[in-house]
């Protein structure tokens, strides 16, 4: 995908320089960076606070708090944005965008930090307390240091999320790179403008990725882990307890309460307003496109995933990174580069421009890493050691694949396919750019209706999308419960 972006950027030629001088680019950069910085900072504060409360204080209803801090992931940002707009039609712009994105993405900080806290060695905190430091000192000097890598990684994820978000900011009318790219392309047919903006966004994204890899460097990870399974010291909330509970309740009300209330209200309204045939048609389109995307992704991912898991060479590492860069790239950019490819290469244009196969291919490229992660993890279960033992017992390559590799990786492949399927169901920006004329998915219907403030017509689509999105989150939280204490 990077290659594709560069190639199309080159095709744009000299006009790029001129574009770079235009004030619009500076404005977009400012807008996007301001939003990303605000959201990331807010997510760090909220996410670390909830993680700390859950794993280091005598807070009650910890499981409920944990759940309510993971559930916002189930609501795609454009659905949350739709819910807010439907509830308060007058709000739009920077602050509401920052609020909605923060509420939607603080779980990216909460989850890894909570996991790091439960893994970290409580002996370090015990030592700090025994050496005479109070709980606050201990928190800043010891606890925070231990979870810093997890928090940094989570924060970067939030920033990436903001960079790539299209639905929420477009519904809430705040201009960032993604919306500017889309309108430059769709409304102005300004190819060079769209390309330059997309390239600038890619540069920003890659800079963030480099930061994330630096943060994940092995040297920064604490080697001490909680092997003893011992419970950490828990802080008594005491007199601050009521304030803490009110704060958490408020957070849940904002991140879950308002969206669900608004969604429920408009859905009740919308059931009568919406045309069931239209809803089912969109659901069917989403379903079949996503199923095709899942199949294609699995077909692409299985050989690559097995290769990466089996070979530790430079090529394997490079392949893996290339695939993950694809994940970080915003859907708008991927959609746009595929559109450009379709337009510039005659062979593709004749056969695939504005066709379902191209859209499915776009989904596959976008979601490759999701499938890849699942396949790789399960391919590691089928270690090369097992393969060698099977060979020493007289099994040839075909029998080894059929009796060892395949049974061990099949559950992972199925999980990867399911994840790709469910994620493709709610994809918005690439769908908008790549869909054939007249094709409507759940996401595009929701977006179109919200754009014209037809909230009750949009609501059934939003409800269906939330229902679909909840499944992978449920799977994810079940996995975390299984692996964590």
């Amino acid at each position, binding site marked *: 995908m990077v290659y594709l972006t560069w190639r199309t950027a080159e095709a744009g030629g000299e006009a790029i320089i001129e574009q770079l001088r235009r004030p619009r680019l500076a404005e977009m950069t400012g807008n996007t960076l301001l939003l990303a910085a605000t959201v990331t900072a807010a997510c760090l504060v909220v996410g670390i606070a909830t993680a700390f409360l859950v794993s280091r204080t005598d807070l009650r209803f910890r499981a409920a708090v944990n759940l309510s801090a993971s559930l916002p992931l189930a609501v795609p940002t454009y659905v949350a944005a739709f819910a807010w707009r439907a509830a308060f039609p007058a709000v739009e712009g920077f602050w509401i965008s920052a609020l909605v994105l923060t509420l939607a993405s603080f779980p990216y900080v909460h989850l890894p930090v909570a996991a790091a806290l439960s893994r970290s060695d409580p002996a370090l905190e015990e030592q700090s307390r025994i050496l005479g430091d109070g709980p606050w000192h201990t928190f800043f000097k010891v606890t925070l240091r231990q979870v810093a890598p997890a928090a940094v990684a989570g924060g970067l994820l939030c920033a990436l999320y903001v960079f790539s978000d299209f639905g929420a900011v477009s519904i809430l009318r705040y201009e960032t790179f993604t919306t500017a790219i889309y309108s430059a392309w769709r409304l102005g047919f300004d190819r060079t403008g769209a390309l330059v903006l997309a390239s600038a966004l890619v540069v920003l994204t890659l800079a963030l990725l480099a930061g994330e890899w630096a943060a994940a460097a092995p040297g920064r990870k604490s080697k001490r882990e909680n092997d003893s399974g011992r419970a950490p010291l828990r802080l008594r909330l005491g007199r601050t307890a009521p304030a803490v509970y009110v704060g958490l309740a408020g957070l849940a009300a904002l991140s879950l309460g308002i969206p669900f209330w608004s969604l429920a209200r408009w859905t009740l309204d919308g059931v009568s307003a919406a045309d069931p045939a239209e809803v089912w048609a969109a659901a069917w389109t989403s379903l079949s496109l996503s199923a095709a995307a899942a199949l294609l992704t699995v077909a692409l991912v299985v050989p690559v995933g097995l290769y990466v898991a089996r070979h530790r060479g430079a090529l394997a590492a490079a392949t893996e990174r290339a695939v993950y860069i694809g994940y970080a790239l915003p859907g708008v950019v991927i959609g746009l580069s595929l559109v450009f490819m379709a337009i510039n290469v005659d062979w593709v244009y004749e056969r695939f421009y504005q066709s379902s196969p191209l859209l499915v291919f776009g989904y596959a490229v976008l979601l490759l890493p999701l499938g890849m992660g699942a396949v790789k993890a399960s391919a590691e279960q089928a270690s090369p050691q*097992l393969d060698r*033992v099977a060979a020493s017992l*007289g099994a040839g390559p075909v029998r080894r694949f059929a009796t060892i590799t395949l049974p061990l990786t099949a559950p992972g492949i199925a999980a990867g396919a399911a994840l790709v399927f469910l994620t493709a169901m709610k994809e918005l920006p690439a769908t908008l750019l790549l869909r054939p004329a007249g094709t409507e998915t759940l996401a595009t219907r929701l977006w179109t209706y919200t754009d014209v403030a037809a909230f009750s017509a949009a609501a059934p689509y939003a409800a269906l999308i939330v229902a679909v999105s909840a499944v992978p989150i449920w799977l994810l939280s079940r996995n975390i419960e299984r692996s964590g204490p």
Partner: protein
Amino acid sequence: MSELSIEGLRKSFGGTVALDGVDLHVTEGDLVAVLGPSGCGKTTLLRCTAGFERADAGSISVAGKRIDHLPPQSRRIGVVPQEGALFPHLTVGRNVAYGLRGAARRSGRVAEVLKLVGLGGFESRMPHELSGGQRQRVALARAMAPRPELILLDEPFSALDAGLRQVVRAEVAAALRADGATAVLVTHDQDEALSLAGKVAVMREGRIIQFAEPQEVYRSPADPWTASFVGDAVWIDAEVHDGSAATSLGELAADAPDGPVRLLLRPEQLCLGEGDPNATVAEVEYFGHDALVSLEFKDGRRLRARVLGSAPFSGQAVSVTVNGKARAF
């Protein structure tokens, strides 16, 4: 006849030489230990024999037939890897039957080998329900089941804790003997090699330095490095005249031409007695079943002795004599 014969085996990874001309001959029904420190090439030797790695030069034959060009599945060599590596999705019975074909699966061989390793009746268990030692024994049963020409064991006990290790070791050796299997055990553990194997091949820097019975490796090591590697050593510098060397322990018989030598004694060869004291006890490390005693002689030299039973106290004057011959280098 299942005899392993390795000749002139060489293997390099990039610029690093892992095998530098290895020769090894294992006779039928024997258990040979390849003993060496980590990085000596012993694992590479095993992987080349099993066919997981292709050697650069040299030959490997089993029962008189060259096998080095064959893929692993055609070599009829069983492998017991470090962590057992049982197939996690198959029951114990199906793990053991994996290498058996057709009629052999129902011949009762599975039950037979499981009984040999002391796990009769475990057929329907899943690998994750077993303890570490049990997993290791199932891995052995799986390797033995198709009656391979040769079984290779790759540090099979290193993942077990100390107490368990000794028990499992003895059981594995007994099972291999009972089945009449020819086996090569790769290990870095001296006790394991010396106690289990009929013959020990000491390996260092890609070469086999000595190939002999355990007693001989311990008593007459090929060189000073091997001497120190296979057990505690007491070194004394001395001068030989007419097959005898004068030391602070008195005259010692030494099989060497006249001139300066280094004499090797094992700590248990030094005996403490009641006679004329020639040393004092400087320090005692007490282990229960025995003790390591640091002795200071009149010329200021310090030597270590291993004493069974009750240990002397620090500062005690003792008479030290030598039991058996010293090995001269």
